[in-house]
């Protein structure tokens, strides 16, 4: 098991480097001169040249990339914002807690609703409950998060005046954004749990459990569920990435000052170091979550553990 953990952690290094390379290249290829962006249109050609020399913008691409990675790894320095002139890291660390809170809350809602609904749907396959759940899951899957967000605002804030339409500081304000963001994840987790459960219920060992006279509730909730949840754990991990990305849209609808809104604002202002930092941060968080999920997975599934004994 320890070998597996170490291997997985070491594997993160090339992934981080690769992601950084992709994001760095994208920014490098973006038209527009960073020196001009920082200094403004009125700066003299000489000042621009001096700035380029000082910041290493005249260096070859790989040298620039190397220095970016070096600064990021040793000092946590991922550049400065063109607009606010503050370090990008600072900007991101201020915004990040909101995004994490929003995504984590949505994940929690999705798991709490999705898994029980999936299990009930599977054990009552083709019942009214199953059909209704599956229709709702399909609708949830097809609903754009930004539209659902607007509909929720329209109903609960504009018409009923129950909940605020923006911010994320009180628990009332957290309800609508987390609901809007979780709709898709709920649907996917429900569908996954249902199909995984259906597959497991037909397995021979479940028939054995029933044959030896085990209570139906124990068969379902102990024997079947444990195995059925293994693929669901993976899906939950992947969904966390979708939620992190979906948070970008959700934050801009509900005016939550998280990374998503920071990125959308930065894209509009062409403040690319911040965009770059934001993408990097979210991608790294996603990789870490996936690592965690894989470790849980290995812990749950003795077949994986056995490979690394």
């Amino acid at each position, binding site marked *: 098991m320890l070998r597996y953990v170490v291997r997985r952690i070491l594997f993160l290094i*090339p*992934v981080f480097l*690769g*992601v950084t*390379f*992709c*994001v760095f290249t*994208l*920014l490098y*290829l*973006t*038209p527009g001169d960073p020196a001009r962006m920082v200094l403004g249109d009125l700066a003299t050609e000489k000042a621009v040249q001096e700035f380029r020399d000082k910041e290493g913008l005249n260096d070859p691409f790989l040298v620039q990339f190397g220095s970016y990675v070096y600064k990021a790894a040793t000092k946590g320095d991922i550049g400065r914002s063109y607009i606010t002139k503050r370090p990008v890291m600072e900007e991101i660390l201020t915004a990040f807690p909101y995004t994490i809170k929003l995504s984590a809350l949505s994940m929690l809602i999705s798991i709490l609703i999705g898994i029980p609904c999936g299990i009930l749907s599977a054990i009552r396959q083709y019942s009214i409950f199953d059909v209704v759940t599956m229709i709702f899951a*399909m*609708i949830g*899957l*097809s*609903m*754009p*998060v*930004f*539209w659902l967000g*607007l*509909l929720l*605002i*329209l109903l609960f804030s*504009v018409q009923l005046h129950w909940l605020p339409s923006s911010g994320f500081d009180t628990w009332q304000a957290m309800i609508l954004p987390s609901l809007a963001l979780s709709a898709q994840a709920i649907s996917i987790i429900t569908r996954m749990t249902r199909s995984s459960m259906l597959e497991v219920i037909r397995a021979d060992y479940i028939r054995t459990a029933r044959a030896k006279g085990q209570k139906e509730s124990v068969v379902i909730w102990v024997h079947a569920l444990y195995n059925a949840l293994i693929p669901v754990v993976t899906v939950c991990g992947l969904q966390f*990435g*979708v939620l*992190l*990305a*979906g948070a*970008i*849209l959700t934050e*801009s*609808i509900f005016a939550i000052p998280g990374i998503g809104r920071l*990125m*959308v604002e930065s*894209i*509009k202002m062409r403040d*690319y170091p911040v*965009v770059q930092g934001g*993408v990097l941060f*979210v*991608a790294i968080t*996603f*990789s870490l979550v*996936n690592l965690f999920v894989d470790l849980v997975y290995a812990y749950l599934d003795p077949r994986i553990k056995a490979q690394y004994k």
Partner: protein
Amino acid sequence: MNTAIEQRKKRTPLMEVLFRLKKSPLAMAGLLVVILLVVVALFANVLAPYSYSKQHLTHMFEGPSKNFLLGTDEFGRDILSRLIYGARISLMVGFIAVSIALLAGGVLGAISGYYGGWIDNAIMRVMDVLLSIPQTLLAIAIAASLGPGLFNLMIAVGVSSMPQYARIVRSSVLSIRGMEFIEAAHAVGSSDMRIIFKHILPNSMAPIIVQATLGVAFAILNAAGLSFIGLGIQPPYPEWGAMLSGGRQYIRDYPHLTLYPGLAIMITILALNFLGDGLRDALDPKLKR
């Protein structure tokens, strides 16, 4: 008596799939809606009562009426006409983005699966890196660096979903590569390219078709999201996500500006998802009855 069996034998693979698809009412409904949308998109200029950019300045923010069936927007433009032209843009973005992803990802996946070894390793590690960035985020990053516009939007959405197709094609190629008829093709001296494109790919179409159908839905959703945050299609072009974004500030007083474009997106995605699910069942040989 034998005619029924003979008829069944005569069915081409396509007819066989359609026959099985017909058993699922939801999938057929999805197919019908998709066909309808394609027709609307193709004949937008005939079907739309007005031009998408014609401003009726004396009829701003009107609700549904006889002249404007779904009402008008903040510039007095007919919402129905804009939705109809929007179908053209959304479907085009969906299909072209998926074609880009399928072409690039498919070729990479096929090479990877067929040759194996270090080529496979190199290609798939790059795909792994791309997969470790959430897809919507990758699309946002690409679109941000390319700048707004229809063509850039298609590239951003297409490239961001490329790794999935590479993986699917690779695994299908891997499962077929070892079969005897491929060995036979080698033995009669077929070239690698001929074997890949003539023998392997046609036999691995089923998972690719399913993924592509669901992929079009995701591409449309993704593109609408990008337009919503200002990275996609620019005004006055009537993209559904951009229409939503434009109507958003008037939601308190004129919710119909955001209601209809959202509904259009949802119906389209729902139809494609039903169709994709149905195709998955129809194409799955395990479920053959």
